[in-house]
């Protein structure tokens, strides 16, 4: 039985290891003999490493006396490397007195040293290659994104034709997660935003004695612009990232493949319910943010300008037209669709390991916030031209 033979060797080894060589690693050259002593191990070799490079070697053959040395692999490699350098410079090198364990280690590093001699060429791409690669990758990711939109649209169309296909349970769950659970954070931030705007505007208006116009400032800013925007940004950070992380994890654990193999379209089960839920939830959250922002404005106007809540609400009807209100709310479904699409798409882009989930989630949040702001700017320009 072959491990019987091995164990004999091991017993020998143990004895050798037991008679520990004392002292730090050292090398002394006298005449043609270099005597190595002490423990040549990774922990103790840093001094020797530099000395080996600067030592004055005899011009003729070199004899290494290894009888007083204990090696580990690093020590054996350093000696082997030195011997090679000497041989390359035309000297004869003799290694003598190594005990069996040291001999084995020297053989081991010798037989594996080929890896060091043939350094692997790491291909470092030049500037143009990098630009090219990056452009191609960007182009491909846009193409993939449009393909994804198409696929989702096709699934959506099929579900519209046959509403029984819709996953109502999933939609309800997503509504709870993306909508109801976001109420506290959206409410708090919108309230604070209302307070801040009222404060900033209020100090200026007070100087002019135009206190009542604080209502116009707070209401228009919140309802037209800030409530839809801040809600979309919060939802992108909160829900969009969750979509990417969920789908990405399912990619890594092969759950998406499992769905496909069972014959369930991942689009139908995962993307569509999220999308529908968010398109419903985000406008509702925006209305809620409008209200909370106005409450913030009322509180601040009252304490800063002494404007009563009653007068504030009275003025509100004049300050904010229905068109203004709708133009704010109208943006929300567009933002919602965008956030859901980007979030889900980035989830499906995850490949490899758990590390990819984190990377893709970051990309997803950055992209959806970026797109939300860009689209918001586009809306402003469009409204400006339409005179809304």
């Amino acid at each position: 039985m072959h491990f019987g033979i091995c164990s004999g060797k091991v017993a020998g080894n143990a004895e050798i290891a037991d008679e520990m060589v004392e002292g730090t690693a050292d090398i002394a050259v006298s005449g043609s003999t270099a005597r190595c002593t002490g423990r040549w191990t990774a922990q103790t070799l840093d001094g020797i490493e530099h000395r080996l490079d600067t030592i004055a070697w005899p011009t003729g053959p070199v004899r290494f006396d290894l009888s007083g040395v204990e090696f580990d692999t690093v020590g054996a490699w350093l000696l082997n490397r030195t011997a090679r350098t000497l041989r390359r410079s035309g000297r004869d090198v003799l290694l003598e007195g190594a005990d069996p364990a040291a001999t084995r280690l020297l053989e081991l590093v010798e037989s594996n040293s080929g890896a060091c001699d043939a350094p692997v060429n790491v291909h470092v791409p030049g500037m143009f290659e990098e630009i090219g690669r990056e452009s191609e990758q960007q182009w491909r990711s846009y193409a993939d994104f449009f393909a994804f939109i198409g696929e989702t649209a096709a699934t959506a169309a099929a579900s519209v034709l046959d509403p029984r296909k819709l996953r109502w349970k999933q939609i309800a769950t997503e509504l709870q997660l993306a909508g109801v659970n976001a109420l506290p954070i959206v409410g708090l931030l919108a309230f604070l935003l209302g307070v801040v705007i009222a404060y900033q505007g209020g100090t200026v208006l007070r100087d002019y004695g135009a206190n009542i116009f604080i209502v116009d400032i707070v209401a228009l800013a919140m309802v037209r612009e800030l409530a839809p925007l801040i809600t979309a940004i919060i939802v992108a950070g909160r829900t969009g990232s969750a979509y990417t992380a969920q789908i990405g994890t399912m990619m890594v654990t092969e759950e998406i493949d499992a769905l496909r193999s069972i014959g369930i379209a991942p689009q139908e089960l995962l993307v569509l319910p999220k999308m529908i839920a968010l398109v419903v939830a985000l406008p509702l959250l925006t209305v809620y943010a409008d209200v909370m922002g106005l409450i913030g404005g009322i509180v601040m106007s009252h304490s800063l300008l002494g404007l009563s809540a009653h007068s504030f609400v009275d003025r509100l009807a004049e300050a904010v037209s229905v068109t203004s209100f709708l133009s704010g709310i109208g943006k929300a479904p567009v933002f919602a669709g965008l956030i859901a699409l980007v979030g889900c798409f980035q989830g499906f882009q995850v490949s490899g390991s758990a590390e990819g989930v984190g990377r893709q989630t970051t990309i997803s949040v950055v992209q959806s916030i970026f797109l939300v702001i860009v689209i918001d700017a586009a809306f402003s320009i469009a409204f400006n031209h339409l005179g809304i």
Partner: protein
Amino acid sequence: MVDQQSTATLVAVRGVEMQFGDKRVLEGVDLDVARGQILAIVGGSGSGKSTLLRLMAMLSRPTVGSIRLFDTEVTQIDDAAALPLRKRIGVMFQNGGLFGDMNVLENVGVPLREHTRLSDETIEQMADIRISLVGLDADAAIKYPAQLSGGMRKRASLARAMALDPEVLFLDEPTSGLDPLSSDAIDELVLELKNSLGLTIVTVTHDMDSLWRIADRVALLANGRVAVEGTMEELAKSDHAAAREFFGGRRGRASEHAAVRS
């Protein structure tokens, strides 16, 4: 037949119990690892093999009991005191445990870079040698863990575990998830390491062929204890119920026949 001359016990486990929540995984384990041996820990899924390995490698602490590593009690040890011991052991993780943001060469160099003052050049050469030693080719050295197959990842993990010339290597399922050819190659490698470097190896495995090939001693865990311990032949012949159940199955028998034939 397994070396009677060897006296040094590198790891001594005494009365170790481990509890996770309400679940007691280990209920009084006693186990010795002698220098220069390959000890295999076997047992069914959930029998606490990996838990025991983690305890011995100082990756977690037992609920009750004593573990002595190189004659030092490690169950209550602090990090500063554990460091010199950690440098003397190496752990190969089941899925590699390789750092994802470094390539294989850098991964293998981490222990040397962290714990020695060797030059970068030497560290890189040592990493190259280790990588060659575990049978990875030079192209693999500059790849990232995500680009490697399971077998290559295990090899890279082994190369890193050996970076500081440890006296004891802990291997967590070194051949699981590998094709038979790669499993054989890993077994060969483990044997070669033991023979050429005199390493002591503790391995957790399910792999019957691997057990017959490499293990000097086998400890079978059942019901939270070491049910039987001995050479593979002894365990295969054992009358103990747990051993009969574990080694008497069709796969166990097949491996035994294969081992006897070879």
